[in-house]
């Protein structure tokens, strides 16, 4: 780990020593401007001596082509196997060098005449053009198309992976449902329920906490975990957790606790609906039930009173419908 890190550092240190791409681009543009200036100067000013002429043409062309060559070369090196682009790049450079140096040498040494400006200029121009097309345009185009192809392939792969993931998520949810339905072990059930909850929250988005629906979801989960029951929750709309909504939430918790501890069934249903005019909650089980008119039941009436009391404090109402053997329904209504 440490070694790899140190290596990385020396590597980047060397990179820092090289000319940054930004400077290369700037230089390249200076070169291009100079090319324009030079072509204007050749037509409009008297020709200087051959040596000045030749060296200024070479310098300007070098400045216009060189930086771009370095940039493309670096990208070829970085993308490792440049493939055909690398071959074109290196061959073009070799030919450009041969023509660029060969032309003037031929003109000065081999020919009878002491100086042939046309041959020098033509060979320099061809060399520059060759470097431009073979060393910059073609490899750059190749690298660009290859990047696009790669990106497209990556996108196709990502889509495939998403489809597989969707199927897998379904399978896992399915397996967790089957486990909860068939096992008699409370601990296993709790584990499967918790995992299913987490997966669903991740897949379908966690309900915004801090509002009424978030609060109801949290209460339902808390009751599920504490009493090993399933709370089937359906919510429609939501509202901020102001004092009346908090009172309803407290009453829902009381009703759920009551159902989980006394009804003798493993499933309780909750429905909440928030509209502009009213907050409605229904809590229902198919359990034992009780006779609401009897005051002295085993602490049932007490719980019922605390639900009614909570609601009444904030101007709401609670109706408890129950009969022995017929389950219990608690209906809570609160106007904001």
């Amino acid at each position, binding site marked *: 780990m440490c070694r790899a890190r140190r290596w990385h550092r020396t590597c980047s240190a060397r990179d820092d020593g090289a000319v940054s791409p930004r400077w290369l681009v700037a230089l390249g543009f200076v070169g291009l401007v100079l090319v324009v200036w030079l072509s204007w100067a050749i037509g409009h000013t008297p020709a200087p001596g051959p040596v000045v002429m030749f060296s200024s043409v070479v310098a300007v062309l070098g400045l216009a082509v060189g930086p771009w060559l370095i940039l493309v070369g670096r990208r070829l090196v970085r993308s490792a196997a440049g493939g055909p682009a690398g071959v074109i790049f290196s061959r073009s450079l070799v030919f450009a060098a041969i023509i660029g140096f060969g032309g003037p040498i031929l003109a000065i040494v081999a020919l009878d005449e002491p100086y042939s400006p046309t041959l020098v200029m033509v060979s320099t121009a061809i060399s520059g053009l060759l470097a431009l097309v073979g060393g910059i345009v073609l490899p750059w185009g190749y690298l660009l198309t290859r990047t696009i192809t790669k990106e497209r392939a990556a996108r196709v792969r990502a889509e495939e992976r998403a489809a597989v993931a969707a199927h897998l998520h*379904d399978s896992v949810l399915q*397996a967790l449902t089957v486990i909860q339905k068939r096992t008699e072990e409370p601990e296993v059930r709790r584990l499967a329920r918790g995992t299913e909850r987490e997966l669903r929250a991740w897949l379908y988005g966690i309900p915004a906490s801090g509002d009424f629906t978030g609060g109801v979801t949290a209460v339902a989960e808390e009751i599920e975990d504490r009493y090993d029951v399933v709370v089937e929750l*359906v919510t429609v709309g939501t509202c901020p957790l102001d004092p009346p909504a908090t009172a309803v939430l407290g009453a829902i918790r009381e009703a759920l606790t009551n159902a989980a501890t006394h009804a003798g069934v493993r499933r309780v249903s909750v429905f909440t609906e928030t509209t502009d005019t009213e907050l409605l909650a229904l809590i229902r089980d198919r359990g034992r039930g009780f006779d609401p008119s009897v005051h002295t039941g085993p602490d049932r009436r007490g719980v019922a009173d605390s639900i009614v009391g909570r609601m009444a404090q904030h101007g709401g109402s609670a109706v408890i419908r129950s009969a022995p053997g017929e389950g219990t329904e608690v209906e809570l209504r609160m106007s904001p």
Partner: protein
Amino acid sequence: MNIRVFVVDDHTVVRSGVRAEVGDLVDIVGEAGDVQAAITGIRDVEPDVVLLDVHLPDGGGRAILDAVAPTHPHIRFLALSVSDAAEDVLAVIRGGAHGYVTKAISGPELYEAITRVHAGDAYFSPRLAGFVLDAFRGTAPPGMDPELDLLTPRERDVLRLVAVGYTYKEVGARLSISARTVETHAAAVLRKLRLSNRRELSRWATARRLI
């Protein structure tokens, strides 16, 4: 004679689960794990009811509905899913399914749902009832037929009780109306769901996902 049922699901565990839960009460006449096999199979055996997974590779339950429902109007579809995505569920209902249940449903409840759908009634699970109430919330936007796009107070009452787990019979007893009236209300809701403005519903579904 037992109801003839065809099961479409890409998870074998679901198909065997359905067999285990209701195999004694209905005749399972075929099953399939993908769209093409399902279309061929359903056309071959012409079952009474198809249990249709909402999420399938190659197009989902909707593709099967689109292929089979127009040519075989007597076959009823009941959507079955572990998914919580409201827009997927509503899409299958709008495509012609008569009901929707989650896979956590118990055997007796699943049998009840199959019987209802076979009789041509709508079957709402608590979750679907919640989705529908959510979809029809508030007042109708201007320019739309309010008769078509809003639920009546009675239909809302029915859906609320379904959402908290009441059967149609219990809903009837609780609201002092007959079970047949409850069925009529459910059928009306299903019709409104299919006819309501598609753009409105999809906008609602998108907004819900963003919450």
